[in-house]
């Protein structure tokens, strides 16, 4: 599996809706989403549709409500208004872990790994619902347990190797370098077998070469697993290069939506960012 990390892929630019996603049910369909915190509207009238293999980006100035949207999508917060459909199922009233089972996985802006556990165990925790082994056989270590564990180990190593993390599999997650931790979080999210993953600032704290590597990896994830990716990122270079569609939010509302090209030219966006978007490039 190590060949993945050595293969350097070209990063192409895609159009808004990918050819193969046409006529298919969107993996994520958000309608008129909104949340108030004690009278303060944090997110309002948020609409987005993401195709099954689409890479989309969510950008906006600090405090625009981007992470709040992710929290709404994963049911960390319950929305005040609107609905979220994942693979056509409304997540209303569901808890975070149930929503994950519907096929949505995420990473966190401030890394939330299980820092006392090894990288491998972090991934195995992610695979929790894939490991088929009854509680009793876990308690008594019946043969089923060993079979399930062996399978889980193989699968987890496969995933780690895919992101080039095979070498750190047995190191404690908390002791890994920052960039590696970010990638490990992505592997853990992938381990839940999702149909869409949400990446919250995956490139934050990475150096330019790591960021470039990350762009390849994001593309490769989509191409290998055929899943959708929805990411928040301040690094405009990454967003503009990787995303096929971009939504811009400010003050909790969408101010623009479109292809990277359209967004680059949108006066509202430029105004919101006060020209900042070019400086990061």
């Amino acid at each position, binding site marked *: 599996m190590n060949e993945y990390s050595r293969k350097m892929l070209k990063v192409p630019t895609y159009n808004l809706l990918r050819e193969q996603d046409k006529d298919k049910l969107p993996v994520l369909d958000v309608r008129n989403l909104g949340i108030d915190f004690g009278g303060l509207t944090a997110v309002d009238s948020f609409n987005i549709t993401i195709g099954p293999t689409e890479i989309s980006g969510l950008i906006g100035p600090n405090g625009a409500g981007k*992470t709040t949207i992710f*929290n709404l999508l994963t049911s*960390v917060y319950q929305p005040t208004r609107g609905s979220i459909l994942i693979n056509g199922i409304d997540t209303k009233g569901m808890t975070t872990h149930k929503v994950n089972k519907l096929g949505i996985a995420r990473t*966190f802006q401030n890394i939330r790994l299980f820092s006392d556990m090894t990288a491998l165990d972090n991934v195995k925790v992610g695979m929790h619902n894939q490991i088929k082994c009854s509680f009793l056989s876990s308690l008594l270590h019946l043969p089923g347990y060993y079979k399930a564990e062996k399978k889980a180990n193989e699968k987890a190593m496969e995933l780690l190797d895919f992101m080039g993390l095979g070498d750190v599999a047995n190191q404690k997650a908390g002791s890994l370098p920052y960039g590696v931790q970010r990638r490990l979080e992505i592997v853990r999210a992938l381990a839940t077998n999702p149909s869409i993953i949400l990446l919250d600032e995956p490139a934050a704290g990475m150096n330019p070469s790591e960021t470039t590597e990350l762009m390849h990896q994001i593309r490769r994830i989509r191409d290998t697993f055929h899943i959708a990716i929805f990411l928040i990122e301040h690094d405009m270079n990454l967003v503009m290069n990787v995303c096929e569609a971009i939504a811009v939010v400010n003050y909790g509302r969408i101010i623009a939506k479109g292809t990277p090209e359209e967004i680059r030219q949108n006066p509202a966006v430029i105004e919101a960012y006060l020209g900042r978007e070019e400086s990061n490039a």
Partner: protein
Amino acid sequence: MQIIQYLINGISIGAVYAIIALGYTMVYGIAKMLNFAHGDVIMVGAYISFCVTNYLGLPSAVSVVAAVVVCTVLGITIEGLAYKPLRGTPGLAVLITAIGVSYFLQNAAQLIWSSSPKNFTSIVTMDPISLMDGQLVITGEVLLTVCVSVAVMVGLTFFTSKTRTGKAMRAVSEDRDAAQLMGINVNRTISTTFAIGSALAAIAGVLLCSTVPTLMPTTGSMPGIRAFTAAVFGGIGSIPGAMLGGVLLGIIETFSKAYLSTQFSDAIVFSVLIIILLVKPAGLLGKQVQEKV
């Protein structure tokens, strides 16, 4: 009429719980530790006051001052020797140490003052107020305890919101590291908190034993646990919450004894506590902190 008398009885013991709970909540709010030795500091305070009045023959006001001084010193010493070295370690380590301190104080008191009970002479000399032909009796202890606990509550609220040291305490309570970065001496602030908490314990001890005269080395432990319960009930860390929790606990306890069952009153009181916590997981006046994601 009966019901009002029970209410008064409930408020009486409740106000004692409240003043103990205020000490618990102070220390918990700032040092983030459950100081299980608090109840035993109360016991020490009561013994000091008893000794000063009965052995030295000094007036009760002097005995209260002596109790406050001794307990403050004791509190600072305990904090310095047993808790400070464990700063920054998991909360459970300090909890166990606090339990060790509690055992130590109880056994030391037994060796010093022997285990036979002493009858504490109330510091209140006022005659009870009798209403409705003696159907309703309000004792001086009730009035004093209620007044003192309200005064302490108001005083603490004022102290933590207006004075420099009090603000430093709140800062340490919110975020210890940030407070340190802002130039607040965290160690000294925590020591001050213990000093205040222990001084309160001394006053609580005198009031507890004025209301409930039996004084033994284990006198502080059960009221201590009740008061801790009261502090959680009201929302631990919240000063008015401790007051409210203490008084409510006293009233619930008295009413359950009076109208439901004396035998099962422990079970009833704690069941009410559990139900309240299920409805309001952070206690009555506690702040529900939303975890930041």
